[in-house]
């Protein structure tokens, strides 16, 4: 079998440069990497020792477990534990050629048998998560030889290569394999060390790592505290890399020992209507349009992300292969038009003062900005700002009208579309869309093996979202990652992953600390 090099799935994202953020790679010194030291990182947490059971955003476990594929910093899928992969012309058969010489942390070798054991485990023993849904679409897992794995799907399934970037391959010798893994044995550059949930996780280096000479660091220590302000610890030198809020950027940018960069994928912000059981008059398209005309996207994004905010009507930003320029340029709501909004309301026979809008959001200040914009039409707004769980439950009751939310980076665009599908996971942020025609359009895109044709198919589905006003995209922003100047060889990736095939902690090293005066 001839394995083809992986196709580029997404073009490099434009826009990161020129937004006032230095590229880490440019700022780093061209020196021989130094060995030793502990890199201290604070981005997201670690909720489970069983990598197959994660349900949310992940940034830690990549340090000790790896997958067949990986998402590169530009969003393309690249080989990882599989050195090459091939998809059949009909999009149903995915073949992977495993890398030679890869060993688990217990010294055992990685072969196709271990990979298939992992696929089977996710398919049959794990209860939740989109990986389970994807694996249940598999007809068979085959191992023609010790280095080849074939996944045969029941139907063409284009997201698979990207989704496999988060199906981590573990040794079946990992304690708890038959139930919940308590001590994962992976192939990553670091091993599973001391984990104290919501406190810290220490991962010592793996001396038998398959990438020659790597990792350079002796260990990585993750700060797992929720909602902590990491900016002071960064400035004090107690952390090397951390995600920071935009309110801390002014102080951090004045510190010569700190560099600022961005995650390559975005958070997208949107106002969703209640699509599962819309209440009058928000079941009227004209009223939805009026609400959209009341929103000042630029002002909203200025508030949320300052000058780095990206205004568009799509779920990706310019530069992404799925971005549709014509659709973007045709955005009727790129600027607010309150007069048009009022005219639409009159046409629909709606007197705003007589209808109170129930608006649900998290306890985030940006939601209040959107609420104020809607209020200008004359609607009284009952803004219910809740914590994660409260919002989840309230949204699930579908007794509201508008929802202002955001959603973060994903390994594949499909993971954004699937949330709007009739049987999609956790659909509440997008108002629980129930639209068989939209489902069919997304499924058509999923079944399309050709990249260019798939982009067109996805955009057909997105056009339906725009036409039906299921949700109104306000814009995008990128999470800010700060690192100290002594960190070399590391740059924020496309997703939150701390380690991927062409970047991350395996390649990072620590230069001597610069004794520059502190700001």
């Amino acid at each position, binding site marked *: 079998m001839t394995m083809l090099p992986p196709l580029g799935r997404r073009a490099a994202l434009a826009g990161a440069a020129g937004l006032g953020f230095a590229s880490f790679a440019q700022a780093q010194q061209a020196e021989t990497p130094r060995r030793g030291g502990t890199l201290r990182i604070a981005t997201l947490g670690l*909720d*489970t*020792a*069983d990598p197959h059971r994660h*349900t*949310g*955003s992940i940034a830690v476990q990549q340090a000790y477990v790896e997958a067949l594929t990986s998402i590169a910093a530009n969003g393309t899928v690249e080989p990882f534990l599989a050195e090459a992969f091939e998809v059949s012309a009909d999009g149903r058969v995915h073949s992977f050629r495993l890398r030679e010489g890869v060993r688990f942390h217990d010294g055992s070798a990685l072969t196709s048998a271990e990979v298939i054991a992992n696929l089977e485990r996710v398919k049959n023993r794990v*209860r*939740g*998560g*989109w990986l*389970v*849904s994807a694996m249940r679409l598999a007809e068979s897992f085959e191992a023609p030889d010790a280095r080849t794995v074939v996944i045969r799907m029941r139907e063409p399934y284009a997201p698979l290569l990207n989704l496999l970037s988060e199906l981590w391959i573990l040794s079946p010798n990992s304690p708890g394999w038959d139930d*919940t893994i*308590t001590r994962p044995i992976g192939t990553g550059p670091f091993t599973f060390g001391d984990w*104290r*949930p*919501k*406190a*810290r996780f220490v991962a010592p280096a793996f001396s038998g790592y398959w990438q020659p000479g790597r990792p350079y660091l002796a260990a990585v220590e993750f*700060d797992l*505290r*929720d*909602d*902590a302000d990491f900016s*002071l*610890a960064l*400035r*004090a*030198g*107690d*952390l090397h890399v951390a995600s920071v809020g935009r309110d801390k950027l002014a102080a951090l940018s004045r510190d010569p020992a700190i560099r600022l960069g961005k995650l390559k994928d975005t958070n997208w912000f949107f106002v969703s209507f209640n699509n599962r059981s819309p209440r009058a008059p928000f079941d009227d398209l004209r009223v939805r349009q009026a609400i959209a005309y009341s929103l000042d996207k630029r002002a909203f994004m200025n508030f949320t992300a300052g000058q780095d905010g990206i205004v568009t009507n799509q779920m990706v930003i310019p530069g992404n292969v799925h971005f549709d320029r014509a659709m973007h340029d045709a955005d009727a709501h790129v600027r607010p038009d309150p007069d048009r909004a009022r005219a639409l309301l009159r046409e629909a026979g709606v007197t705003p003062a007589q209808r109170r809008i129930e608006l649900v959001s998290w306890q985030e200040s940006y939601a209040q900005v959107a609420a104020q914009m809607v209020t200008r039409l004359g609607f009284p707004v009952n803004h219910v700002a809740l*914590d*994660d*769980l*409260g*919002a*989840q*439950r309230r949204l699930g009751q579908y007794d509201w009208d508008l929802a202002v939310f955001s959603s973060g980076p994903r390994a594949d665009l499909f*993971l954004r579309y699937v949330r709007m599908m009739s*049987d*999609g*996971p*956790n659909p509440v942020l997008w108002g629980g869309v129930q639209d068989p025609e939209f489902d069919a359009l997304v499924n058509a895109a999923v079944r399309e093996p050709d990249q260019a044709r798939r982009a067109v198919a996805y955009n057909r589905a997105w056009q339906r979202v725009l036409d039906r006003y299921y949700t109104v995209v306000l814009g995008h922003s990128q999470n800010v990652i700060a690192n100290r100047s002594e960190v070399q060889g590391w740059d924020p990736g496309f997703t939150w992953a701390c380690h991927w095939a062409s970047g991350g902690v395996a390649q990072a090293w620590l230069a001597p600390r610069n004794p520059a005066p*502190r700001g």
Partner: protein
Amino acid sequence: MTRAIGWAAPPLRALALILAISMIAFFCIRAVPGDVVDVLAAQGDLTAAQQAEMRQAMGLNASPIVQFLTWGGRALHGEFGNSLRFGKPVGELFLNALPATLHLGLLAFAIGLGLALTLALGALAAPRSPLPLLVQAVNIWSIAVPTFCIGIAGILIFSIWLGWLPAIGHLGLPAAILGIDIAGQLVKPLHDELRQAQAAPHVRTARAKGLHPLRIGLFHLLPTAMPVLLALSSVVLAGVLGGTLTLEVLFGLPGVGSLALNAMHGRDWPLLQATIVFLAAGVVLINAAAELLHRLLDPRPRR
């Protein structure tokens, strides 16, 4: 017989209190909307069917009574179960968090007690010095100045500008801040008690004998004020066990307070329940020990 009942009553009362707290906490926790599956679903990718399956597997569908009986039966055997969110034994998570809280709490309490005693006795021995004013100032400080404000200022000054201390994981600064706060709570009532005790006949006699004011303070006044100090200290120390949360978060010392808060946010009922029970046991034990000490030091309750 009566004396035996007198000595046995406090531990029995403590045990009954812990049981009552366990039961009340269990049902209060279950009254909070949402469960751990909701938390996992809110993170991203669970379908409704997957959520139902997980609830069934975790036993979250059983009635609260059944859940309490199951939990109680296991707890009596010392099994507090696993964290629903992290899959780790709750005892292990608690023991991981306890040292940070104990170190911070005890160090802060020692600083606070030492400072309060020094200031109160000093102010008594030198009433015309600035010390009585300092007693008032420390007391007002503890009431008016939030510890997290001083914590942030402390990090800016000592960790960032001067670079003397690490910003996270260091005990000295948070213990000092919390210690001053504790001193403020203790020093005023202690000073007032000592001043009242000055009018006692045995103190007047000591003064007439020409004893040094410090000696009078230490050996004649302080024993008189000891019951008040003991009672106050037990309340403060019990508060410190669960009350170090803001400083734990600020200084990266994840202790029992952070553990309980995270368990609450994550609807991790076994972890939260065990943390409450352990904390309640700690508080009850401290109070029981204080009561026993009181009985040892002061013969009046024994009569």
